[in-house]
């Protein structure tokens, strides 16, 4: 990292940080794609599914192997979290929670990859200048990724609200509470819409904010020269807490929101 920073001596710290916060993007305007975020996101999702699918195929009720034990621990942890919060019958919520938890955990763990390692490897492989390489490997530090996840959860909230309560019931819920009197229905409606929209927004921004800030601090530390090494170690150690916690919070809130969507008021 420090060596890599030295090779970018032509960049000021400000330019260095700005460069590292930029995505590898193709396309114009809204129809542009962050290839690094999306690529890493899909890759890590495939890593998750490959490992878990390989265990699922060979899963035995007898004596499990070590990998099966590890996978079962995660599955049971998620299952208990779901059962503790959601009491209805739904075949989607538990696998959804598992996917969300492991996938976000893997994406967050990309925060531990040294910020200049991947660009340096790419420059070694292709001979490109470091300053020309854009590579942000933490998908959850990209708001597009977290909005994509929260958007999926939001659609599920709407879908199950309507499925359980019907369109009428769902609409009634939006204007008939918290105040019971008809004259206050517009105010109710505004409050409820805000509540409804705040859920996916808070979900995605919380995850994005934590990981983006973590990444930013890593970048700031990387500009410090030789002193960065112990600081990197401290900050990475702190992420031992942040990374699983953020994945867990996202999973738990997903379960809570979906179980609220199932409840009739």
């Amino acid at each position: 990292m420090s060596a890599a920073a030295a090779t970018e001596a032509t960049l000021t710290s400000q330019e260095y940080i700005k460069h590292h916060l930029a995505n590898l993007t193709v396309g114009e305007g809204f129809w542009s794609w962050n290839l690094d975020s999306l690529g890493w996101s899909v890759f890590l999702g495939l890593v998750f599914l490959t490992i878990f699918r390989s265990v699922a195929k060979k899963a035995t009720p007898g004596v499990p192997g070590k990998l099966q034990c590890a996978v079962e621990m995660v599955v049971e942890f998620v299952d208990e979290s779901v059962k503790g919060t959601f009491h209805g019958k739904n075949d989607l919520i538990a696998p959804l929670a598992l996917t969300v938890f492991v996938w976000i955990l893997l994406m967050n763990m990309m925060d531990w990859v040294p910020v200049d390692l991947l660009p340096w490897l790419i420059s070694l492989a292709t001979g490109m200048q470091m300053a020309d390489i854009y590579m942000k490997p933490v998908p959850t530090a990209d708001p597009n990724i977290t909005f994509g996840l929260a958007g999926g959860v939001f659609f599920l909230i709407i879908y199950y609200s309507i499925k359980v309560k019907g369109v009428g019931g769902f609409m009634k819920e939006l204007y008939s509470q918290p105040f019971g009197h008809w004259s206050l229905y517009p105010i109710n409606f505004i409050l409820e819409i805000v509540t409804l929209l705040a859920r996916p927004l808070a979900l995605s921004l919380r995850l994005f904010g934590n990981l983006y800030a973590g990444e930013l601090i890593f970048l700031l530390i990387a500009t410090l020269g030789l002193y960065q090494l112990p600081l990197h170690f401290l900050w990475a150690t702190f992420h031992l807490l942040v990374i699983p916690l953020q994945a867990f919070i996202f999973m738990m809130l997903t379960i809570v929101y979906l179980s609220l969507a199932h409840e009739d008021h």
Partner: protein
Amino acid sequence: MNLNATIIGQLIAFVVFVIFCMKFVWPPIMAAIEARQANIADGLAASDRAAKDLELAQEKATSQLKEAKVQAASIVDAAKKLEAKIVEETAAKAQVEKERILASGHAEIETERNRVKEELRAQVAVLAVAGAEKILERSIDAAAHSDILDKLVAEL
């Protein structure tokens, strides 16, 4: 922080991954876990049952052992009684036999004595005759004096 089509890409990936997980990952793993839980529950129940069975068997064995001990004691008692009876009977038989043998011995001795007595008597008669002959220096007609001899013999 610029929002772009990446959101759509991520949303599609999310939906696909969740569906895959729901169809192909979660059910087999959960099935394996639940099957193992059932196995373990069965095993625990079986071990409980086995422990109870063992307790019962131990109780049964203890009672059977007690019964056997009582039975053995009664058999030993009976055997002792029988033994005493046999000893008694044998002793009685032996006594009878002894008396019989003694009696027959006595009888034999008696008959022998009688026979010897008869023999002696006869020989005494002959000796008496021989003695008398010597005294008289002449022959005595045994037949003529048999009455005297017989009297003599009878007196012996």
